[in-house]
């Protein structure tokens, strides 16, 4: 039952070309386009590192932000509005299985998008593979969980799709901004950089693990905490109709 729902949700995901182009291809395309233009030479101002290597983790933030604060909760809000969940609640299948199926599909897409980014970045721009792969996997999974949980929390409590959108748009912009997608993080004030360290999905932990430093436990712990708190409240408060 759950695998069937997940399989169908995956098919529906890929039936909307805009969505999978945006979530799977766009981050890689942006990285390649930006990288072909500049940032490929070691920069003394960055301690001899290449700017594009520091920018790459921000593209992971972009993927996770599009999925976690846009695609995933947006679709759930739409399903609720259309009565898809209500319809499901009249059958032996729980609407909860629809939520789990959606989570599985979006997490799968996030992983595919990440792998594409790492592989293409490495082949085209020689961005090194994550040097602390285990630390990177942990930072990625925790950061994704925290951001998805926040998205679900908004979807859970927003009374109407309009309110949901009104909450998603600034949250999305904030995550992208603090994650260094709009502006390189080094141009941000120190305070905003520090806030960004603890804002899902945790850009600093991704960057550290990618460049070979172990992610800081405090940053990972905050991601875990946000996942648990936001996820629990979302699960408790989720309205099916």
């Amino acid at each position: 039952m759950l695998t069937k729902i997940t399989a169908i949700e995956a098919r529906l995901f890929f039936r909307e070309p805009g969505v999978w182009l945006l979530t799977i291809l766009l981050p890689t395309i942006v990285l390649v386009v930006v990288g072909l233009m500049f940032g490929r030479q070691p920069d003394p101002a960055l301690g001899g590192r290449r700017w594009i290597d520091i920018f790459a983790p921000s593209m992971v933030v972009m993927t996770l932000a599009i999925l976690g604060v846009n695609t995933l909760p947006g679709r759930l809000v739409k399903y609720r509005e259309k009565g898809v969940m209500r319809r499901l609640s009249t059958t032996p299948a729980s609407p909860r299985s629809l939520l789990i199926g959606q989570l599985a599909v979006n997490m799968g897409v996030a992983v595919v998008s990440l792998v594409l980014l790492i592989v293409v970045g490495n082949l085209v721009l020689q961005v090194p593979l994550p040097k602390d792969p285990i630390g990177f996997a942990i930072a990625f999974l925790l950061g994704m969980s925290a951001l998805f949980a926040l998205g679900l929390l908004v979807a859970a409590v927003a009374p109407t799709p309009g309110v949901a959108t009104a909450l998603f748009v600034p949250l999305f912009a904030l995550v992208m901004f603090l994650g260094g997608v709009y502006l390189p993080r080094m141009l941000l004030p120190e305070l905003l950089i520090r806030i960004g360290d603890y804002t899902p999905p945790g850009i600093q932990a991704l960057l550290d693990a990618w460049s070979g430093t172990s992610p800081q436990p405090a940053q990972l712990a905050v991601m875990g905490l946000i996942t648990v708190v936001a996820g629990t409240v979302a699960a408790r408060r989720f309205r099916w109709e």
Partner: protein
Amino acid sequence: MNVIEVTNLVKRYGGHTAVDGVSFSVEEGEIFAILGPNGAGKTTTVESIGGLRAPDSGSISVLGLDPRRDRDELRRVVGIQLQESELPDQIRVSEAMDLYASFYAEPLDRERLLDDLGLADKRKSMYGKLSGGQKQRLSIALALIGNPRIAILDELTTGLDPQARRDTWQLIEDVRDSGVTVILVTHFMEEAERLADRIALIDTGRLVALDTPAGIVSRVDAEQRLRFRPSAPVEDDLLTGLPEVRSVRRHGPTVEVAGTGNLVPAIMAVLARNQIVANELRIEQADLDDAFVALTGRKLAN
């Protein structure tokens, strides 16, 4: 045998009492219509039966199950078609059928069900591309796919064109004939009259009448009207002398006779005896619409 027992059902939303002490029972294998104007509490009643809403007081038993406590078991044996519940636009008809079939232990044959519902050539179509009638029929198919013992269908023909509506009625009769008990929520008199074995007439949250369609009509002190243009002049006395006749009025050459009982044969007989032919004869009889007005003092809004 009763498959559903509803006793003193009360459901409030805030200060508004949507269902106010409704009781009825549904027999196995019948088509039971819940009829009433919009906002009468029909949907709340069936959603309580389906376990989607918790009653404030009263009790409901469906096949011996408590719809709230035994929700999981109830869902395996009750198929529900809801108002205003859609599917994702991108899902194909066959995928929706496969998905819903996967929820049940012994689903019906999907291909046959689609055939019966006239959706066989829409298998590959996406939900968003279906017409209103096709969406409605798919929704009925999904309510029946689990081979339920009871099917609850809420406003199933709203928005359908007359032909699609008649096809759907035929389908519902076929479903009943296959042994499924059908609860039909409707505000269409014609639908209830045509399909229902029994009708529960609900108005402002209360049960106004519970009977067969003919039984409900007969509760109305049914006055009949007869209009005709006589081929030769008719004296009023000739007609008012009949016990069935209450009043005689004239509109130019047309005579209008109101009365009860066997009014039509009585008038015809007396006209025939006087060698008068009733031209342009029109007869008006009470129907469920009249019954509704008589029982509630209001018109059934369409």
